[in-house]
């Protein structure tokens, strides 16, 4: 569903992503971890067509993002790290707009939009302008937007940020159910607990390179810490010792 081949991105002399190769299969939830500035958001932007790769290819549902971007994008839904939406549209209107862009039939929209708003507990606010929505409400609305057009591929950049515990739980359940139905999910997150519970495979990126990519048990054995949790593995790969040293200053 998602295939990245030799994906690289440079900004001038700075190489943000180097030679990234990855395949996320239908029904798989792939967790993409890494410290700040590792190149995760740059990767997300290349996958979703917001940035042109310096080298390499992105293939979504068999369609190349470079040569057939419209078809590739039609199969995909994005939740960005900051859910900026049109402040002068209402919640219902935003979903209608998304539905129109992705070619959802009007009859489907008229039944599903109220349902999605209800599911995310946004119905009381459906007629309000988005400028009055909180961060979490906008995040839920963007999630509702991608569910509306039932994409085969979901790309999520910190999807849990700003969500209350109930909504967080709802969203996790939604991701699991979508994966069971065959949706490929690529998720960047800093919440290791979520990655641990949800993801079938985890990739760890440092300095623009994927330093580890495996299932959780495989990561455990690679890190030589069979009994430890993902946090310990992550810190051992990304510099846990420095973390301990930094604590001395507090």
């Amino acid at each position: 569903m998602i295939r990245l081949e030799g994906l690289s991105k440079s900004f001038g002399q700075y190489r943000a992503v180097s030679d990234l190769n990855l395949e996320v299969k239908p029904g798989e939830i792939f967790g993409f971890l890494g410290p700040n500035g590792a190149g995760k958001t740059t990767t997300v932007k290349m996958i979703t067509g917001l940035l042109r790769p310096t080298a390499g290819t992105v293939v979504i549902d068999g369609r190349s993002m470079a040569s057939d971007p419209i078809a590739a994008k039609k199969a995909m839904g994005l939740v960005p790290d900051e859910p900026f939406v049109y402040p002068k549209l209402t919640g219902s209107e935003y979903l209608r707009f998304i539905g129109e862009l992705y070619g959802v039939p009007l009859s489907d929209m008229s039944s599903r939009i109220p349902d999605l708003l209800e599911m995310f507990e946004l119905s009381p606010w459906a007629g309000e302008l988005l400028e009055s929505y909180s961060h979490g409400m906008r995040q839920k609305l963007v999630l509702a937007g991608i569910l509306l057009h039932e994409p085969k591929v979901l790309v999520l950049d910190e999807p849990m940020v700003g969500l209350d515990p109930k909504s967080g739980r709802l969203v996790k359940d939604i991701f699991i159910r979508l994966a069971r139905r065959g949706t490929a999910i690529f998720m960047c997150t800093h919440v290791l607990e979520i990655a641990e519970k949800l993801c079938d495979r985890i990739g760890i990126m440092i300095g623009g390179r994927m330093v580890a990519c495996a299932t959780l048990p495989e990561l455990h054995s690679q890190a030589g810490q069979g009994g430890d949790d993902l946090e310990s593995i992550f810190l051992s790969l990304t510099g846990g010792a420095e973390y301990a040293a930094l604590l001395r200053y507090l």
Partner: protein
Amino acid sequence: MWGLLLRRRARTLVNTLSRWTAYEWGRNAAFAAAGAALLYGLHYGFFRLLFYLGGVELIGKLLIWKLTAMLLLMTFSMVVVSSLLTALTTLYYSYDLKFLFKAPLTLRVIFLDKSLESVVFASWMIGLILIPYVIALMRVEHLSAGFFAAFLAALPPFLLLASSFGIGFTLLLLYLFPSSRTRDVVWVISSLSLTVVYGLVRFSQPEKLVRPDALKVVAEYLGFLQAPTAPYLPSWWFSQALHLAAQGEWGAWGARTAALWTCAALVYAALTMLAGKVYFVGYSGAQEGALRRRTHAFRPLPEQRILGARPSAALLWKERTTFFRDVKHWSQILLIIGLVFVYLFSIRRLPLDSAHLRSLVSFLNVGTAGFVLAALGLRFTFPAISLEGKSWWVLRSAPVDVAEIMRDKFLFSALPMTAIAGLLGVMTNWILDADRFTAWLSLGALLVVGLAICSMGVGFGALFPRFTVENIHQIESSVGGFVYMSACLFYVGATIAVLAAPMQMHFMRMFGSGVWDDRVAAASAASWLVLNVVAFILPWRLGRRALERHE
């Protein structure tokens, strides 16, 4: 603390400049050179005008200084209007306000920082245009470099005082009407008042200056020339200071300039004191979104009846809905309506005695109305792509081609722009009673100019997108805005130039001193076609390519 805030701005500037690549240095140097050329063109025009006025016997000097006073009054009014439009976004909706209000800073320090930013945004471009005028004045009046220094010394308090009007009004508006709906209504009423004031100033007929016969007697005309132009406004004090500097009365100039600085300092101190009391109430109110429950009916969009169920219809619907819900646009629409009326009134007041002269003016109207359309394009069409702002990801990650987004922006602008172009063309031809050939030629040319300006607006807007600005003025006054405006002015000038040949043949045929030559007409039509092909296609293609690659 304010010093620290100023240092952050200086540091931002230094960091930006130090990170420019050789390409960026070259590109910006080219744009700066183009800007200098444009300023030189303005200077040339001002010089010719002042030289002509200065040559009028007995009253030449009076005319020059009356014109200077009127120009300064106009500059003052423009900065007031501009500050009204910028103060709201800069003082209440800037991205860095959340950080500043959370920091241990007093309200007055935050106000000083943001209000001076507003002053700069509102006045720098208008202030810059004064420089070619002053240099032309120096050449005509044979003034030394000391005069220019005197001008530069008195300019900052003048611009500061003009901007203070908008800033003070906005402070009070947001304090007195923290509810967004009431505030919107007051904002629109204020804009309407401004439009009326603008109209009244125009209807007071300042053209009397160059038409002595419009006044009954010579004494009345001389009285008009010698009377102060709005004596209670800083523009008159500035004008007086310049006049005194020109006469070498440096003591009196110093007193006037000191008065300007003192007045600006007092007004700004008063505003800062006021801000300490009212700024937070307004800021807090501005954070609250408008709660206006709207219901959405799931029926076909009106745009889909024309465009079908393509994304274009949805894009156009989104564009229309978001545009008209933004109250800041209403005030601009009101100002445009005022501008159109004033334009037509000015045409009606032109002293044209013969039918041929009226037809000639009808043709030249393509140029002046084209300039008005270019100004509208800079305000509405050019920023359209950039105004997608941080929501750009929605469109960019959607299955929509960049060209389709651009087409939607074009369609949304083209309809009102063509309507205004048509209105200006038809009404001007009707007022001037232009002959049939001229009327059709100028109307056709104006309609094409309107569409070309839209196409260039979208093209240049895509070529120079700025998705992270917080203020529409930052988009307009950017390098891209400057390039767009220059391209529009060049295009309008070229349109007049290529259409001048058939107009000339038409007039010569009417006077019986020449014949119509089809080859010349065909060459003119071909040139016009080429000009429009370039204007419609080149910026569009460059813009599309740039937007597809935008990072």
